[in-house]
């Protein structure tokens, strides 16, 4: 069971209530596909990913970015048992999508960068620590059902 301090709980709730999922999701996913181009291997059906401009304006990338944030919001609503909440998602990523779990950390880093650029000075070290702890728990839960 993950222990969350009051500060961590409040910080995570506040971040997700303030961010625009329609902006952050697409921005984080497209940044991941640009900064770590090997992640494009999972998006063969998304069409034009030839350069940064194409990725940023790709509607399938944008739509999927929103799906990812939706998944994170589920974790925010169930912070005390993300592992159980993510059981089916973990099986999906392992058995159907076959995503190398190391990629989860790459997307997590891009999410951190995007949220940091949105929040500016408000993204203090303590806020960053809380956000990265949350993402670490999410990643560990997504890895759990891999076999």
């Amino acid at each position, binding site marked *: 069971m993950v222990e969350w301090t009051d500060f961590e709980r409040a910080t995570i709730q506040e971040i997700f209530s303030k961010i625009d999922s329609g902006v952050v999701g697409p921005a984080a996913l*497209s940044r991941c596909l*640009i900064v770590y181009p090997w992640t494009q291997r999972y998006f063969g059906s998304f069409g034009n990913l030839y350069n940064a401009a194409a990725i940023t304006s790709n509607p399938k990338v944008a739509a999927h970015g929103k799906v990812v944030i939706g998944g994170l919001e589920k974790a925010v609503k169930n912070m005390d048992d993300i592992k159980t909440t993510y059981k089916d998602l973990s099986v999906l990523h392992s058995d159907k999508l076959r995503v190398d779990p190391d990629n989860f950390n790459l997307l997590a*880093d891009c999410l951190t*960068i995007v949220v940091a*650029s949105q929040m500016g000075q408000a993204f203090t*070290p*303590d806020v960053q620590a809380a956000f990265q702890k949350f993402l670490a728990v999410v990643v560990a839960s997504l890895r759990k059902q891999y076999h």
Partner: protein
Amino acid sequence: MSLTDKDKAAVKALWTKISKGADAIGADALGRMLIVYPQTKTYFSHWPDLKASSAPVTKHGKKIMAGVAQAVAKIDDLTSGLLDLSELHAFQLRVDPANFKILAHCLQVVIATMYPNEFTPEAHVALDKFLSNLALALSEKYR
């Protein structure tokens, strides 16, 4: 993943925009690292105060950014350009190279908070490659 001419140009362009704030970036990144990755504090047990705004953290953040500036200037040959720093880290400081990635991440987070419009995905990939190559050059003399 070596630096292309396009990467070098992007890094130099970004550096031009952020170098005036280098001291603040260094201090914030270092202070942030000590909080977000507490295991890194083990390298600074000789400092009385590890808070982000303390004198040793501020001073050392400046020193780190001077190293980054040296790397930007020697971007065409990081290995020989950073030889002195590599020897320092290998034989005296003996910082585990895994920590270079951690500091690189914190530097990028700080740049994102301070220069969100300049730190585009294109600038990000170039800087990430640059900092990886910088870390590699720093580890050159380790073994």
